[in-house]
């Protein structure tokens, strides 16, 4: 069995978690014990793949060793930004579970969870500009925070296109870029820039991360059709039930036998109607076509690696591609 991604990249998961806890624990204005403290701590200890900080740290290897610690700063901010967005996404998606456990808003209440998400974002940004090297750290926090608007635009798109079965492939890709791929691209380039890599290198790493991000989102879309609720740690087939039009649905709509089953779906459609449409998609070629489409993006990422031929970080990029190809 393959080693976990962080081990393949010689990164310590406990160091990453320690950093995330440090951001919380070093907030001297935060009361302990408190609901806020225990909630954020619980979110951190619940774990996760930590793909975003891992990507930032890999990006940091394309800078200079003297500035490598600044890539860690980017890694911390990015994971907090991601965790905060998950808290808000779970409310927006009305999803009661996250990684098999109660989502934060289900464990507290919606108002509290929204403010906890906000706190996480604000605290990470405050932390990123603490310390002596404020000038150097500006990119890390502030430019990354500027991405929030685009992440939101991806969410607005998704909201606006619920049950819009006329969504085009181009629109789907645009939404996917904003919602997921942009942040993954930013992880790679932010780590690199923070660590002092030049713009051209950071730009190539952004393209690399963005391509992997699109592949990742498509694979995530596929899991909605192929995994059980137990495997996902959240309700399966939730995307379609919420009206989120993902790539398998777009491909299934091209099949004249499945199209009518999909077009009859709406927020008030019956469980039987959703189950029938889901079964039809699962038995169609839409899933395979989606997998092939995702592979095009991992191949694009592979081609970008050629730019880094001979660089000590080249192997790390290969490891990332192999991970996303799984």
């Amino acid at each position, binding site marked *: 069995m393959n080693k976990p991604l962080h081990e393949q990249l010689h990164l310590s998961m406990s160091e990453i978690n320690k950093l995330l806890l440090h951001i919380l624990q070093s*907030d001297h*204005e*935060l009361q302990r014990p408190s*609901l*806020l403290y225990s909630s954020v701590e619980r979110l951190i200890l619940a774990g996760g793949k930590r793909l975003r900080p891992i990507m930032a740290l890999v990006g940091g290897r394309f800078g200079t060793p003297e500035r490598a610690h600044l890539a860690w700063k980017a890694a911390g901010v990015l994971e907090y930004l991601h965790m905060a967005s998950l808290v*808000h996404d779970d*409310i*927006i998606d*009305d999803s009661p579970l996250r990684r098999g456990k109660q989502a934060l808003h289900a464990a507290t209440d*919606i*108002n*509290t969870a*929204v*403010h*906890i998400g*906000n*706190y996480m*974002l*604000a*605290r990470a*940004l*405050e932390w990123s*500009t603490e310390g002596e090297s*404020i000038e150097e750290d*500006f990119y890390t*926090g*502030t*430019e990354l*925070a*500027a*991405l*929030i*608007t685009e*992440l*939101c*635009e991806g*969410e*607005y798109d998704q*909201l606006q296109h619920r049950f819009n079965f006329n969504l085009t492939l181009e629109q789907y890709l645009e939404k996917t870029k904003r919602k997921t791929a942009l942040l993954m691209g930013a992880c790679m380039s932010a780590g690199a820039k923070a660590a002092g890599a030049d713009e051209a290198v950071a730009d190539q790493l952004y393209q690399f991360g963005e391509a992997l991000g699109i592949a990742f989102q498509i694979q995530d879309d596929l899991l909605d059709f192929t995994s059980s609720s137990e495997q996902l740690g959240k309700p399966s087939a939730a995307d379609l039930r919420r009206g989120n039009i993902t790539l398998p649905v777009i491909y299934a709509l091209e099949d004249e036998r499945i199209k009518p089953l999909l077009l009859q779906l709406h927020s008030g459609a019956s469980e039987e109607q959703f189950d029938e449409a889901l079964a039809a998609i699962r038995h169609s070629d839409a899933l395979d076509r989606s997998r092939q489409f995702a592979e095009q993006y991992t191949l694009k990422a592979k081609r970008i690696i050629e730019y880094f031929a001979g660089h000590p970080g080249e192997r790390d990029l290969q490891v990332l591609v192999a991970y996303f190809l799984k």
Partner: protein
Amino acid sequence: MNNNLLQDALNVVNELIHMQLHIELDVKDRALYELAELIGSYRMARSRKITILSCCMLISVGIRKHRKLQLGDNERLARSILDGDYLIGMIYRLAVSRKEQKLLVKLSPIYKRAQLKAIDGSDVKGVAAELKREVKDYLDQYSA
């Protein structure tokens, strides 16, 4: 004159917000008028004054959006969460693009403390006074 400054800041914010999003901006806030007075009283480029006031406007409106969530209706709830997130993100986009990043060192802790107060159930009125104090401190340091 400071009404003009407020209007110019509102125009900047409206231009920045993606047209299709239709985010409502309620800027009828005494505290914003006072901030416009304060910022207007400093000797500095008008474009900088507008940027600083725009950031103050965004943080005020962003905080208020999340204090008034529409809990009964998922669609409206989702919109109000996203609107608040979007407005806060816009502060960073605006400040970074107009080279006013140091203001963010002041604004991030204010935004954080507003969340601490909201979670405690305390009144967020103190946020306006803190914003004015921190902006004054920023102007004293960086208005030249």
